C-alpha cells in the first residue's frame, strides 16, 4: 500500500521536474536574438520621416552624422519590435510634428487638407455661373464688330477663324489700315 503511494509520489515529482525542465526552453525561445533589421527595413520607415534639423530632407537620404544616429535608433526600435506607427510617434514627441511628411490632422492643420479642394470647387462654380450667363447672352447677341473702337487693332470676330490663312489675311489688312 505504502509502496504504491511512494511510486505515485515518485511519478508525480518526476512529472513536476520534467514539466519544470521544459519551462526554460519555452522562455529561451522567446529570448532568441532577432536578426538586426536590414537597411531597407530602416529606410522604409526613415523615408516617411524628415530630418528634424536639415530642411526638407527625408531621413533616408540625409547624410549628416545626426541623421545616421536617428537611422540607427530606428533600427534599434525595429529590433525591439516597435511598429512603424510607434516609431513615428516617438519621433514626433521628441522632435515635433515637422518630422512627418504631412501635417498631422489636428487643429489648424485641417486647413491644409480642406482649402485646395474647396477653392477648386469655388472656381468650378464661378466658371459654371459665368458660362451660363455667357450662353444666355450669346443667344441674344448679333455678332458684330465692337462699337467701342479703341486705337489699335480690333478683336477678331471671325467665325471662319479655323482657317489660318483667313486670319492671317485679316491681320494683314488690319496692318495696312
Amino acid at each position, binding site marked *: 500500500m505504502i509502496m504504491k503511494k511512494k511510486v505515485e509520489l515518485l511519478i508525480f515529482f518526476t512529472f513536476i521536474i520534467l514539466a519544470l525542465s521544459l519551462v526554460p526552453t519555452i522562455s529561451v525561445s522567446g529570448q532568441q536574438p532577432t536578426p538586426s533589421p536590414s537597411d531597407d527595413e530602416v529606410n522604409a520607415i526613415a523615408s516617411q520621416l524628415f530630418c*528634424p*534639423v536639415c530642411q526638407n530632407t527625408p531621413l533616408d537620404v540625409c547624410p*549628416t*552624422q*545626426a541623421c545616421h*544616429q*536617428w537611422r*540607427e*535608433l530606428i533600427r*534599434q526600435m525595429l529590433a525591439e519590435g516597435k511598429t512603424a506607427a510607434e516609431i513615428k510617434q516617438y519621433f514626433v*514627441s*521628441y*522632435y*515635433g510634428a515637422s518630422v512627418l511628411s504631412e501635417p498631422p490632422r489636428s487643429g489648424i492643420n485641417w486647413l491644409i487638407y480642406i482649402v485646395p479642394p474647396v477653392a477648386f470647387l469655388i*472656381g468650378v462654380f*464661378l*466658371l459654371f*455661373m*459665368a458660362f451660363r*450667363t*455667357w450662353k*444666355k*447672352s450669346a443667344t*441674344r447677341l448679333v455678332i458684330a464688330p465692337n462699337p467701342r473702337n479703341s486705337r489699335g487693332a480690333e478683336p477678331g470676330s471671325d467665325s471662319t477663324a479655323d482657317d489660318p490663312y483667313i486670319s492671317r489675311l485679316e491681320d494683314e489688312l488690319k496692318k495696312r489700315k
Partner: protein
Amino acid sequence: MSQESGISPAPKREVPIWVQILIWLGLLGLLALLAAGLLKARHPIMSVGSQVPDFTLTLFNGYEFNGAAQLKRSDLLGKVIVVNFWASWCQPCAGEAPDVEAAWKTYEKTGKVVFLGVDYVDTEPEARAYMTQFNISYPNGPDLGMKISEIFNRNLGVPETYIIDQQGLLHFIQIGPFQSAAEIQAILDPMIAGK
C-alpha cells in the same frame, strides 16, 4: 488670387465693392504674413533683459534634480539658471563639456545656481554615452518637441548657453562654446555675489 471672370452681360460694370474689399483683404493678409515670416527669419534671439517665459524640462532618468523628474523654470525662481544647449553629435559641445561640468561643481553646493543641460535634437543612447563620457552630473533632459529652443528663439546651433538671473530675466547669451570654466565663473560670480 481670386478669379475675376465677367459675370454680367451688361457692359461697363465696375468691380463690385465687396469683391474689391475681399481682394484688398487677401492681398494685405498675404503681405502681413510675409512680413511676419521675414521678422521671424531674421532670428532675433531673445534679448538680454527680457523675461524668460516658463518652460518645462523633462529630465533623463538618473539626471533628476532633487528627485524631480521634471523641472519648470518657475520652480527655480530665486536661483541663477544656466541653460546649456548641447548635442552628442556636436564637436564644440564636447570641447566645452569638461569646463561646464567643472563650473557646475564649484557652484553646486552653494545652492544659488542651477545648471540645466538641454539636449537638442539628439538620440537618448548617444546622449547618455556623451554624458557618461564627460561625467556630467547636473540635471539634463531632451528638448522635447524643440519647445525650449523655440522659447529662446535660438540661433539653432549648438552649443548655446543662456544664463537667467534670479528674477527670471535673461542675463547673458553665449553662442558657441565656452573656452574655460573660469570664463563661466567670471559671469556667474558677480550674479551671486552678496546674495
